[in-house]
């Protein structure tokens, strides 16, 4: 009986460790798009590895509406991959996007992203991003473009401008 109990304990411990490990992992699969190789990225990651922001660009005159939507992704090496909207957005549109994506992030532990562009290291950035308890890691990559975020049941996409999207994701008309 004692043996059985200790086996059960070891089994539970292993399960906890395995589940912790799978939550922390970030998987990236690259796909070709029309005319470009490895230009679409499907990223599977833990919801807690994502931080979102609307950045006011501080433009002059009639351009004061310009905001950038930015999503920061934390990888397992404690490096940040920035992701941006393809267009500048008005504040209200940017905030609405954050809200819709946050809803998915809060509801599901793991999400899948479809991102556009090649993954390239960025050596000149000296920016750091606040991930709360996970620290303040540096940005180490060039920005990718946001296309979609999906969980097992919900999706949010802004891919109307392209003729294709990542495999397994839905293309908006």
């Amino acid at each position, binding site marked *: 009986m004692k043996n059985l109990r200790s086996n059960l304990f070891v089994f539970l411990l292993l399960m906890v460790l395995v589940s912790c490990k799978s939550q922390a992992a970030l998987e990236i699969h690259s796909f070709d*798009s*029309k*005319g*470009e190789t490895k230009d679409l990225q499907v990223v599977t990651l833990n919801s807690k590895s994502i931080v979102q922001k609307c*950045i006011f*660009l*501080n*433009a*002059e*005159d*009639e*351009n*004061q*509406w*310009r905001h*950038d939507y930015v999503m920061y992704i934390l990888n397992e090496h404690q490096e940040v991959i920035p992701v*941006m909207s*393809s*267009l*500048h*957005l*008005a504040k*209200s*549109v940017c905030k609405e996007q954050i809200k819709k994506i946050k809803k998915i992030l809060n509801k599901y532990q793991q999400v899948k992203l479809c991102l556009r562009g090649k993954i390239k290291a960025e050596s000149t950035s000296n920016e750091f991003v606040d991930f709360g308890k996970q620290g303040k890691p540096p940005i180490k990559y060039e*920005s990718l473009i946001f296309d979609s975020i999906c969980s097992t049941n919900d999706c949010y996409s802004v891919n*109307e*401008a*392209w*003729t*294709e999207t990542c495999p397994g994701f839905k293309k908006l008309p």
Partner: protein
Amino acid sequence: MTIFNFINCYNYLEKIALIMAKKSSTLRKTKVREHARRVKPSQKNPSGITIVDEHSRRLLGTYLDEKEIYKIANGYILKNIPKPSVLDSKFKGGNDYDDLIAIWTNYFNELFSIEPKLEPNVIKALIGSESDFRLDPKNPIAIGIAQITKETLKIVQDPNGEVKGFIFNNISQKDLKNPSIAIPVAIRWIAYKKARAEAKLGRTATHEEIILEYKGLLKSGSNYKKNALERYRDFYEKLKK
């Protein structure tokens, strides 16, 4: 900026606006004398005649309205004018407006004798970065394929405003959702922004500086100029390949 610099800069801008008024330093206007006009008989005008006060009228060639825009675009000979390069097919509608871009870039280059000339690829990349070539991306402030703001639309139609040398007439916000109207308005605005960037810099502006000025970031205190140019650069590089 000192007051002296500011006045200098303002004078320079004013000079450019006047040069842009094509050939002469005065606007092409005529005086319309007081005259009678037939109207539908009403309680106010039972005789069916009203007196119109003396007023000034802009002559053709210093403004464009919708009818004139279509007339110019439809009659333009595309054969020998520079056209933008073709984008690959992953961009929906990415090459649909190439003729309009070519026509209106050429039109304003010639009209204002712009030197160095505006490049069609710069215009195409700018439009891509503003809207992804979508006719009306969701934005409560800016409208259409070139994301012209309501404020800009007012300026480009104001006979006493910043671009009084050559304005548009009777263009509505709804019209800006139509690329046939939005593209000439945007290119006229870019021509002005080029002159403005050059006045600010005191030298010829590079294409990226023109784009920064269009987006309101050339001389702003923004830390995000690089971010703001990223999409434009991406399109421009693809077009230059």
